[in-house]
């Protein structure tokens, strides 16, 4: 049966929102972990606000305050990308397409939403935060698991995958654009004894540490980390990997040629960023260009499948 445009749109956004919640949880979790290993003087929380990509920015003072940044990212209802809003947005989108979903999938997002609404405010506090974030990550993965193991590989499923991977690719570029670029930009000759810890943090925030080590079998090296997260298409959170998954999905949808073109364009943009892997300012700019290519891809899909 053909897929309603409206349902396609809502599936896609449900996937994007739950991925956003999961990714934010992972970034926040790993960042808190890294900062615990650093001297207090170097603790800076504002990069997380930048990564969240929100238009609503905290006042400068608040950006250095852990509790306020955590509150902003977890439970702030005024912040459109807060975890509590992302989960609720995902649930609301899925609520309007329950008829095409396996029932357990709806229950998983509903469960998560009930949990997040109840626990978000009290989970800002550091002691409870980790468990909360771990649960958000787990439930989001469970949702993927339910869909992957019980859903027919139809157009609904491909819309879900497209939403997941475009959001994931976007998050990887934002983590690299902010944190990796920041690390690479440290003045020549200054030996940062904590650099390794921080690069590990970058990898952890994308669940990539172990796979990076397996792939490179070498020490943690900034430019190598960047190249891994951008180009190792075998790693499912790398930008190249996400684009490859999107290509697979789009070929299973009708009339895909313009969308495929937009994926190829994003891929070209990605390849152009290769020389930027060891230069902070260049990397920041390159990531912005990839993000713009992803935004164009989003617009082309909307044009092709929703408004047409």
């Amino acid at each position, binding site marked *: *049966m*053909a*897929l*309603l*445009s*409206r*349902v*396609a749109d809502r599936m896609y956004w449900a996937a994007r929102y739950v991925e956003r919640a999961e990714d934010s949880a992972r970034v926040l979790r790993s960042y808190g972990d890294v900062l615990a290993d650093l001297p207090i003087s170097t603790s800076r929380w504002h990069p997380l606000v930048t990564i969240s990509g929100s238009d609503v920015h905290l006042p400068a003072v608040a950006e250095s305050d852990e509790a306020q940044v955590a509150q902003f990212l977890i439970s702030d209802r005024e912040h459109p990308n807060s975890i509590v809003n992302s989960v609720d947005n995902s649930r*609301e989108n899925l*609520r*309007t*397409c*329950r*008829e*095409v*979903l396996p*029932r357990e999938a*709806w*229950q998983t997002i*509903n*469960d998560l939403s*009930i949990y997040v609404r109840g626990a978000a405010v009290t989970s800002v506090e550091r002691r409870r935060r980790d468990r909360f974030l771990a649960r958000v990550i787990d439930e989001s993965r469970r949702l993927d698991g339910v869909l992957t193991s019980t859903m027919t590989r139809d*157009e609904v499923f491909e819309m879900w995958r497209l939403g997941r991977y475009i959001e994931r690719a976007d998050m990887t570029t934002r983590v690299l654009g902010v944190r990796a670029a920041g690390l690479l930009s440290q003045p020549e000759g200054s030996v940062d004894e904590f650099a390794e810890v921080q690069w590990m943090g970058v990898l952890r925030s994308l669940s990539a540490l172990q796979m990076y080590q397996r792939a490179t079998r070498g020490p943690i090296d900034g430019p190598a980390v960047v190249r891994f997260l951008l180009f190792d298409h075998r790693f499912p959170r790398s930008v190249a990997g996400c684009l490859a998954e999107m290509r697979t999905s789009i070929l299973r*949808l*009708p*009339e895909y040629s313009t969308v495929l073109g937009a994926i190829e364009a994003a891929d070209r943009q990605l390849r152009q960023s290769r020389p930027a892997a060891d230069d902070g300012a260049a990397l920041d700019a390159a990531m912005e260009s990839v993000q713009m290519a992803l935004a164009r891809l989003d617009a082309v899909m909307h044009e*092709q*499948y*929703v408004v*047409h």
Partner: protein
Amino acid sequence: MEADGSPRPIARELIDLIHRIGLEEVRERQRVSDLDILTMGISFTVYSDGENIDRAWPFDIVPRLIDGAEWSVVELGLAQRLRALNRFIDDVYNDQEIIADGIFPADLLEDSANYRPECRGVRPKFGVWAHISGSDLVRAGDGQLYVLEDNLRVPSGVSYVLENRGVAKRAFPELFQQHLIRPVDGYTDELNKLLASLAPEGRTDPTIVVLTPGIFNSAYFEHSFLAQRMGAELVEGQDLVVGDDDCVYMRTIQGLERVDVVYRRIDDLFIDPEAFNPDSMLGVAGLMRAWKAGNVGIANAPGAGVADDKCVYAWVPDMIRYYLGEEPLIPNVPTYRCMYDEERDFVLANIGELVLKPANESGGYGIVIGSRATPEELETAAAAVRADPRNWVAQPILDLSTAPTLVDEGIEPRHLDLRPFILTGEHSYVTAGGLTRVALTKGSLVVNSSQGGGSKDTWVVDGPLDGAATAPNGTQTNSQMQNQANG
């Protein structure tokens, strides 16, 4: 309860079980059920403080029991009633024989708020207009089930019948092992078959859609549930378009795709801005055109609500006799029609013992309960009846039956009603039981979930009814079994 205070046999097992496990365990099972409902997202939407809130569905764990033999008669009675009602609707939009034969007054039809002149001359398949209906039944003090009203437009609640059963099975698994409780799960399959049968001629493997007003509608959960169970598309007005060829299409990622059957859950005044309310944002312009051209089946057919009217209700027993030549198997609540002098005189003389209902209101508006009204209110009501007798009917105040219900005070009797769902097409189908709604406040008769009412799973139980009398063939007669019926 029996006259001597002992529980009726059909209920014995349940009462024994509750005694055995104790009130605390019953409460624990209730908590588990509430949690089930919350995590499964079984909800209904209420409008309050300017916001639409998605609320967990209220469910009372103690089931309502109905004897299988009694129910078999009720099933026949409901199918009979809907056959006659559909004959009536088809008749009033076509030949109007019932009026020509002097059985039904012509002016009553013209005054009916739900009569749609736009539907004159349409002949839907099988002569059926009200395909899906939910008649409300009440059991009065005499033990008899009565039809209180017929909901022929967009009756809701059936999804909760199915969901309540799922929850009840987990709450009382031991009883499901011991009793033959008639399953309810077949409904969506029957509905799917019925809707498919409404497709235009020659359309094989028809595309069926459920048309919802959207997420803010109080029954959205049900619309989604039914679409999911039938594998149909859940659409909003904006998803559909009627082409120049008078066919209905839905907007898909591949462009337009033909739709054969629309199960509409939108009131008929809103389904087509071209034919009815031009300001409707919910409907589909041209849907009536497509339907009249025979290019799409619509359930329930526009105009079916003409028979869903408190005044028309009084004629249903006559319709059954007129169209089917049968006697009604389930009685109406006696209804006095104030348009007739003799009945009006009776109403005015006995106004303190009657319920007065305006014919063209719904949702309980304008109802006057004689025994609870002040003398001034009764005088106002009497004046209203005299001024516009055609707009009023009156019924005796019913002593509604109760069933044991878990409340703060323990397990106590609470008033309830019952809404079975009836499918009518080429054949008829009636749910086993239906949606039991219960007033959770002591003495209250308000069962609406939006006003603090609850729901129960309804068990139509076939023998053995009593743990002691296990003879599979059953030595009890029908009438004995009916006397033992609970709820």
